[in-house]
């Protein structure tokens, strides 16, 4: 589903001393089938932005289009439930979306709520739990008696079980161990491609933005600050540092290496092994 923001403002606690404009004239377009990374400093408006995508909040001014659904100020959206089924959001803190007695019931909640047949629900629960690497013996536990990373996995499984068309992930790898981070991101990417989803990834990991996104949207104080492919965005280190961000570690290293050896070592999508070959050549072949 195509997603468009047209001059969207969002104001918290309007007409109070705490009034705060969290989104300021935000416009952008995310084509169907794309992965977009949204990055930005603490409090820049990322979580506020994504809460528009399934109608949890509506713009104060402007318009949001998600496929055929339109969100406008003050108008209760039609088909709100259908929109929530189509757009699955994994929240920043998993506790915010866990509430059932057992992990199993929690994962089943979404599909049950949207009227999926019971037999199919069981199948989806098992599939989703496996996709996020949850041990079977945890399914009968209370979701609140889990470790942080285990809770994160349950929250993700609950969204996957609904089979949304738009996948919205707010810091999905925070709290996951290094293997989990890689496995879960690869899993999202596989599902994204197999089911041709539209995916939005909010992240502080510039590495993930580089590895998985087609386009990167940079926010600063509620405004769009920059937009482009990962390579376009990450070739502007100074501009990113001005808004509390940085380039991926690979880019940081390449800049320092270029500096040290006095010749440019450019980013060409190389992995660690390829970079090692380049550096070995720079340092001088030891076998000569």
């Amino acid at each position, binding site marked *: 589903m195509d997603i468009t923001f047209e001059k969207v403002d969002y104001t918290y606690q309007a007409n109070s001393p705490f009034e705060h404009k969290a989104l300021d004239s935000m416009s952008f377009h995310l084509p169907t089938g794309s992965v977009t990374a949204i990055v930005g400093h603490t409090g820049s408006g990322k*979580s506020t932005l994504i809460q528009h995508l399934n109608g949890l909040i509506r713009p104060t001014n402007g318009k949001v289009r998600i496929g055929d659904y339109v969100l406008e100020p003050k108008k209760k959206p039609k088909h709100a439930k259908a929109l929530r089924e189509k757009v699955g959001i994994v929240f920043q803190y998993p506790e915010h979306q866990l509430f059932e007695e057992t992990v199993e019931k929690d994962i089943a909640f979404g599909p049950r709520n949207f009227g999926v047949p019971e037999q199919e629900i069981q199948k989806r629960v098992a599939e989703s739990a496996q996709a996020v690497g949850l041990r079977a013996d945890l399914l009968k536990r209370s979701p609140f008696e889990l470790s*942080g990373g285990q809770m994160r996995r349950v929250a993700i499984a609950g969204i996957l079980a609904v089979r949304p068309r738009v996948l919205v992930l707010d810091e999905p790898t925070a709290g996951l161990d290094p*293997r989990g981070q890689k496995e879960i991101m690869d899993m999202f990417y596989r599902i994204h491609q197999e089911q041709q989803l539209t995916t939005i990834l909010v992240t*502080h990991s510039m590495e993930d933005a580089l590895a998985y996104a087609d386009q990167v949207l940079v926010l600063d104080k509620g405004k769009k600050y920059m937009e482009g492919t990962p390579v376009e965005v990450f070739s502007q280190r100074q501009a990113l540092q001005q808004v509390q*961000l940085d380039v991926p570690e690979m880019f940081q*290293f390449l800049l320092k290496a270029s500096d040290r050896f006095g010749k440019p070592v450019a980013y060409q999508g190389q992995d660690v092994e390829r970079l090692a070959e380049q550096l070995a050549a720079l340092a*001088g072949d030891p076998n000569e």
Partner: protein
Amino acid sequence: MHAIEFRNVSFRYEEDQPYVLRNVSFQVETGEWLAIIGHNGSGKSTIAKLMNGLLFPSEGEIFINDIPLTEENIWEIRSQVGMVFQNPDNQFVGTTVRDDVAFGLENRGVPRAEMMERITSSLEQVRMHDYLLHEPYRLSGGQKQRVAIAGVLAISPRVIILDEATAMLDPLGRKEILDTVHRVQAEQQIGLITITHDLNEVMQAERVLVMNDGEVWMTTVPRELVKKQTELQQIGLDVPFVSQLAHALQKLGVPLTEEPIDHEELLDTLWTLHSRK
């Protein structure tokens, strides 16, 4: 003096459940920074909760500043341990940011005038002073983490435990907050324990405790830890970018004698090799 010592600690959440910690022993010196890493569910947060007496060992003993932790002295000891939880929502008690930071100070009987000073300086240190009268639950994810850290800095504890407390911060913010905590730790000779999945953060600590499935897998220094790339990957962990790169270079026959701790060290070595040609 040991800021913290675990002696053969085992723990299970219920009598009829399996142990989630088995025979865990380690020490943190006063003024030392220890990082704890381990796969999801390996027992890190359970260790943290045992350290400040939220949980009690099923077996074994815990010492804080060389004093054994008991049900009797728990309040006294807890006042010396400042902890930031994995999810800051679990620790907010005040209705405003200011009240929240004040709460810990009131509990410790800090006089009114000094309280205001400490609230101001700790919130300034994490750049949240502008939010003094905001409600904690209305903050962004990263702002909540900053306020939770201010709450701990304000009480000047003898031990600080950060359980993935910077996971929601932007890249520069994370560096800045960690530098701040590290500076306070060094100045006041506090014992600092950071639980983290951030491999670069681990490299800044003095020592590392690796947990695996409820047991201590290894206690070591970062430079030794990164030699174990394959073994760490087998238990769900990894080594930082610079170590991966160094190991790839070694495979190509580039003679690196020491494990680099950061980009600069690796580039220095490569430059030296280059200049010798």
